[in-house]
């Protein structure tokens, strides 16, 4: 009988340390098989499972993955559950950010303040006298500055008016400094766009009236919206816009998680048919009796 390496032996597989391989496969699908030097299977598992997971994420505009969170409403705390996360969490590292984002979201639900500076693309409208409204887009820069009643959010917006193509630049201030009116949407939210509501204090370029209202959305940084819990309003919006594709997006991520159970089990126990984990017998190491 010819000698074979353990990994390519037709009857046995060297599973190395099975629990470690299973753990690796949970963290990254196929990583356990890679550790066991079963490269073809590692490729099949990682390509298929991660491929369908990220395809689902892309289909759902990056938002099908989120975990449960607490929401405070009218002095009561509600726990919002996402049962789909129970299968998504089987994908290990790819879905772990959801747990962190859930905590961040809970901590910043009522936080509409500005942490550092905001410098991003903006789209919205500037409304002056009744009936006078201009659609604008450009770059918005906001930061906290000392004001009469404590720190205020101030900044600039420069860009162009959509209707005429005319460039403009304005200075912005909070609409009602010191009041409870929301100037900005929360820092951490599942929406890639952050609401901005401000007053045009000065016009440095262009034909716009000071005192107008600016209402629109600035781009939210990726780390402030990816895998953040979806609220009812955002869920309704996604269902309305994406329809069945939203359902499909979630199904793809759920199936990917469930398929990873097979991958984890394969790393732990080897394939179901035809091969067995290599077990070193005691009499293998002893010389055969003559």
């Amino acid at each position, binding site marked *: 009988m010819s000698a074979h390496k353990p990994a390519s032996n037709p009857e046995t*597989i060297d599973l190395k340390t099975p629990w470690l391989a299973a753990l690796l496969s949970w963290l990254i699908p196929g990583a356990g098989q890679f550790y066991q030097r*079963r490269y*073809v*299977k590692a490729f*099949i*598992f990682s390509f*298929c*499972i991660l*491929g*369908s997971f990220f*395809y689902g994420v892309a289909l759902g505009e990056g938002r099908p993955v989120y975990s449960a969170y607490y929401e405070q409403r009218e002095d009561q705390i509600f726990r919002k559950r996402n049962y789909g996360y129970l299968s998504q969490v089987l994908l290990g590292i790819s879905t772990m950010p959801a747990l962190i984002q859930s905590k961040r979201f809970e901590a910043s639900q009522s936080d509409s303040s500005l942490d550092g500076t905001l410098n991003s693309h903006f789209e919205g409208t500037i409304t002056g006298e009744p009936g006078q409204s201009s659609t604008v887009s450009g770059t918005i820069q906001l930061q906290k500055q000392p004001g009469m009643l404590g720190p205020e959010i101030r900044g600039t917006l420069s860009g162009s008016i959509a209707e005429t193509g005319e460039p403009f630049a304005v200075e912005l201030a909070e609409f009602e400094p010191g009041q409870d009116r929301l100037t900005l949407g929360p820092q951490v939210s599942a929406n890639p766009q952050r609401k901005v509501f401000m007053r045009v204090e000065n016009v440095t370029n262009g034909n716009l009236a000071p005192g107008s209202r600016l209402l629109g959305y600035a781009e939210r940084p990726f780390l402030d919206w990816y895998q953040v819990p979806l609220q009812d309003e955002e869920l309704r919006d996604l269902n309305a816009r994406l329809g*069945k*594709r939203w359902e*499909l997006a979630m*199904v*793809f991520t759920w*199936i*990917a998680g469930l*398929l990873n159970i*097979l*991958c984890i*089990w*394969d790393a732990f126990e*080897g*394939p*179901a*048919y*035809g*091969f067995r984990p290599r077990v070193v017998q005691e009499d293998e190491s002893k010389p055969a009796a003559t």
Partner: protein
Amino acid sequence: MSIPVLFYIFPMTAVISLVYSASRFEDTSAILRKAVRLFVQITVFLLGVLLLLYMLTVNL
């Protein structure tokens, strides 16, 4: 152009077939052979269900 929702069945079925077969066998050719067979079986079954539903609802 958007892809009809029904067509998402094919990549999903292919992925399920490949991963399931990979968890059953070690030999690459056996994995691929069984995956193709499973893909055909699932697809035929689903198309059969689709045809049945179509026939039951065609005159409604």
